[in-house]
């Protein structure tokens, strides 16, 4: 399945993907996963890619304004989460509950 969003690779400015020698760089596996989740949801028409990009740019700007360490995929995660909540696809409560279940080991599916 090819992604239907050529825009993903073309984002520039603050929203540009970190690259090294022309390759995407994931510092750890969760980064690749959250990258794939956001692109797949857009492929599924859950939102337009531009809407995600706008959220991402806003998260990067807000993190910079408060002087937070620049971590691209943390911003990506925050933008993705916020977009899903805004669209009513998830609730804050179920997301927090599920996160706690993984953190405590109550849920572990690899």
């Amino acid at each position, binding site marked *: *399945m*090819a*992604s239907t969003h050529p825009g*993903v*690779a073309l984002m520039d400015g603050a929203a540009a993907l970190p*690259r090294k*020698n*022309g*390759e*995407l760089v*994931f510092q*750890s*596996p*969760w980064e*690749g*996963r*959250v*990258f*794939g*989740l956001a*692109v*797949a*949801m857009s*492929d*599924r028409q*859950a939102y337009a890619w531009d809407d995600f990009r706008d959220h991402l740019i806003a998260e990067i700007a807000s993190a910079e304004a408060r002087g937070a360490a620049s971590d691209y*995929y*943390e911003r990506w*995660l925050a933008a*993705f*989460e916020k977009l*899903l909540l805004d669209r009513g*696809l*998830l609730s804050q409560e*179920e*997301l927090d509950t*599920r*996160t706690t*279940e*993984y*953190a405590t080991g109550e*849920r572990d*599916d*690899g």
Partner: protein
Amino acid sequence: MSHQHAGGHHPDPESYVALRTKALESLLIEKGLLSSDMVDAVVRTYEQDIGPLKGAQVVARAWVDPAYKRRLLADGSAAIDELGLEGRRSPLVVLENTPTVHNVVVCTLCSCYPWAVLGLPPTWYKAPAYRSRVVIEPRVVLREFGLELDESVEVRVWDSSAEQRYMVLPERPAGTEGLPEGELAALVTRDSMIGVAKVKAPAAVG
């Protein structure tokens, strides 16, 4: 069969962002909005769009350059650094497959993986079924991947950890003697560097 274990899989608890990402994926799948295969497919597409896997470049170099191969097997991290690929991210041991020895890599306790050279681990690598069964019945698991090994071939299973990761140097397929390094690299699959497949010669591909 030997089964080495270096221990120390979880030096740190999983980070909040990793847990949060898991929670998001799990909920989206539960709601029928996504499948993990779809996410795998997106990640794979982007990885392939952005060039060959780094590990494939390492394998192709080792096939064409015997001196490089010796250095790679002696000190995997250092030899990968030589190619400018950041092998030192975590200690990496390269295991050579031969006509008599077949190596296969797993992480029994979690999903330690040499992602600095192989990219992101496939979902099956993280699945409890692969992690437990490949140690107990490697030949059966390899057969399920479509890899039939002669009974005379010794199978070695290597258990990765956060401190010690493994990558397989697959056998160079017959009939590729004249191919340049770049074309050789294109033949090398992720699965062959985990040890669940062999590299096929171009005529046998597709």
